[in-house]
């Protein structure tokens, strides 16, 4: 049964929030960037990233408006307040199930990468198990531990990424990025929608927003997070297309990894650079895994209050493990990931929008939180 100590009762400052959002989003987003946007817009895929950032910022705006309307409530509780207990629980469960699937695919993608690039004889289930257990353990320590760990690694990982980017840009052929525009205006919107997947993790803020103190700082830090992500995504997109060209980059399962893979350094430095890139990447995704896992467990504890988030963290781990090892290889993983990436925005940005609109029409408001 729920013990008082196991219920999350903490307050997180803006910097910690920014750290966890940026680290988790980068870990998730860099997996597929710029594959889907390049597929639609070709060499000028960077416009898709820009449009996606604007849509993501609007989505975060809606989450903020909802949080102001229902102070101290997470999205799951808001759903119950607005839609009623039954409908709120059902939609909440669907929302969390989708995030769990998203988390599973994130884990599977990184396990596939480890298998492809480093440990190709190690069974994938072992890599998944190690990754999952570590992520779950961090998640079980609560939001404060996760955010503090994220803030600890953020500066280091981002600095290393920037250094690698600078070296990687040495291989860029600028004409690969031309022409600057696509003649079909509709494609910009399609590419923006496709690129929105890279900002999906930001939507998870709706589950943990009650811990942010003060809430008024949200627009500032959310805007800052979107800008930082935009910068990194643009650099990686420009770098990858600049090195390989739009057509050739579509051949790769992990284009950004390949962008760093051809870093032009003397052999003696090359392996070190690869090691740095790998550590950076794995750390970011581990923090992302912990954060998403925690968010789902927290959401479930709000839906089914007989268990705490700490218990749910461990309960959902075996389910996640089974989902992660379900795809038989990279091809199946990519197929499921494509589904998650195509519809993730409905869950993470449209669901809060629908709730806010209903609340607005029905004039529903939460009690002022003491």
């Amino acid at each position: 049964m729920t013990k008082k100590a196991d219920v999350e009762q903490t307050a997180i400052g803006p910097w910690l929030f920014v750290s966890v959002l940026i680290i988790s989003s980068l870990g998730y987003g860099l997996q597929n960037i710029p594959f889907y946007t390049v597929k639609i817009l070709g060499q000028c895929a960077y416009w898709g990233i820009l449009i996606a950032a604007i849509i993501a910022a609007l989505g975060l705006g809606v989450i903020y408006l909802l949080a102001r309307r229902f102070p101290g409530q997470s999205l799951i509780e808001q759903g119950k307040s607005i839609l009623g207990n039954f409908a709120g629980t059902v939609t909440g469960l669907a929302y969390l199930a989708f995030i769990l699937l998203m988390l599973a695919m994130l884990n599977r993608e990184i396990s596939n990468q480890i298998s492809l690039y480093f440990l190709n004889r190690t069974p994938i289930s072992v890599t998944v198990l190690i990754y999952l257990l570590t992520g779950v353990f961090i998640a079980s320590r609560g939001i404060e531990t996760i955010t503090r760990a994220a803030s600890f690694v953020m500066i280091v990982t981002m600095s290393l990424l920037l250094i690698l980017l600078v070296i990687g840009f040495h291989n860029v052929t600028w004409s690969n990025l031309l022409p600057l525009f696509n003649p079909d205006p509709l494609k910009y919107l399609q590419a923006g929608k496709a690129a929105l997947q890279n900002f999906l993790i930001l939507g998870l803020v709706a589950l943990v927003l009650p811990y942010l103190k003060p809430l008024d700082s949200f627009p500032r830090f959310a805007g800052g997070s979107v800008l930082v992500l935009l910068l990194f995504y643009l650099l990686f997109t420009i770098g990858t297309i600049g090195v390989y060209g739009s057509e050739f980059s579509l051949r790769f399962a992990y284009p950004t990894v390949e962008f760093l893979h051809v870093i032009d350094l003397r052999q003696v430095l090359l392996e070190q650079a690869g090691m740095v890139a790998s550590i950076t990447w794995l750390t970011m995704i581990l923090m992302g895994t912990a954060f998403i896992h925690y968010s789902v467990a927290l959401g479930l504890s709000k839906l089914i209050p007989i268990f705490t988030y700490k218990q749910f963290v461990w309960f959902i781990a075996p389910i996640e493990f089974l989902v992660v090892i379900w795809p038989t290889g990279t091809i199946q993983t990519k197929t499921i990931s494509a589904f998650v990436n195509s519809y993730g925005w409905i869950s993470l940005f449209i669901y809060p929008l629908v709730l806010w609109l209903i609340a607005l029409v029905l004039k529903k408001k939460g009690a002022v939180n003491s």
Partner: protein
Amino acid sequence: MKQKRLVFAVLLITITICPGCWDSQEIERRAIVVGYGMDAAPQNKVKVTAQLIKIESSQLNIGEKPEKPFVTLTGMARTGFNGFVGLENETIGNLFFGQLKVVIVNNAIAKRGLKQYVDFLERHPFLPSQGYLVLTEGTAQEMLSEALAAKFIPGVAIADFLDNPRNIDQVIPMKNWRFIRKILVGPTDPFLPIISFSKEERAFQFKGIGVFRRDRLVGRLSKDESRMTALLMSKVSNAYLLIPVPGMGEVSFKGVTAQSKMKVLKTKPQLELEITVKVSGHVHDIPSQAARFKNKDIRQIQHAVQNALTKQMRKTIRHLQNLNSDIIGFGEKVRATRPESWKKMKWDEEYPKANIHVTVSFNLEDTGVYR
């Protein structure tokens, strides 16, 4: 407390059973491949050669005569990767390709088209994309089997030479991934440096570049033409020039670098392009021992170099147009800056008859310690 013990136990078990032992391999068990060669063989087959480092030969006793520190394995195959599988059966160790530094292909196989033979180089991450591809007019097997006078392992020696940007003059390196990208995507065609082995000197010599039309070898450029190509592509950081200057004899220039810029002038009725090359360098040797240069002399040297380079560059571009191979990247410029015209254009037909203007400027940076 009970929960903490449980967590500790789970982590302990995980650490014990999951340390990634599946992929561990002792270094003595590894057959490290540093060079790989492909020669044409009858019936559309390919003769593959792998150069492996002999790890134990590094442990020589004093007075012991050094052996060749590498061995080569050969086999017949249908594709490039198919050759690996055959070679793996010839060694008791496991072939390890993570240190593959150079892949050598011979002329005959390059004329067939390399698409089917090089795909594996980029497809699997355990093969380093930064390895170099080179072309030989002899056989790749010979290149990888002969011991060198100066450096023992040929595969490593070739990669070391190509790795150094100061060596880019008459040879332009080509990495695996760049070559594959060019043959698959275009419109820029690939090229490969040509290497040969001198049995007298027991050393490698680079002899210009082999020019491709997509994946097929269609011709070669001489050493001088290769140098001009490198200048036209801004690939040079330390070129050498020997140019006759009136009144001074044949003047040598070193540390020559170039920055080129292309421009599409018009696409109709005939394609017209302009390439402007800004070259700079310093005097290295003047046979007449000329000193005390006046501005007039400097201008004379610059003028002589400009004229000579313009002439040689035009000749090189004409040669490439005759081969219908666009290794410099004119097509890429048209695609990037005139996308609408590019869509309607048949590049294979337009490129050979395109009018390409060359403008060269030369900046003499210094004349040595003499004023």
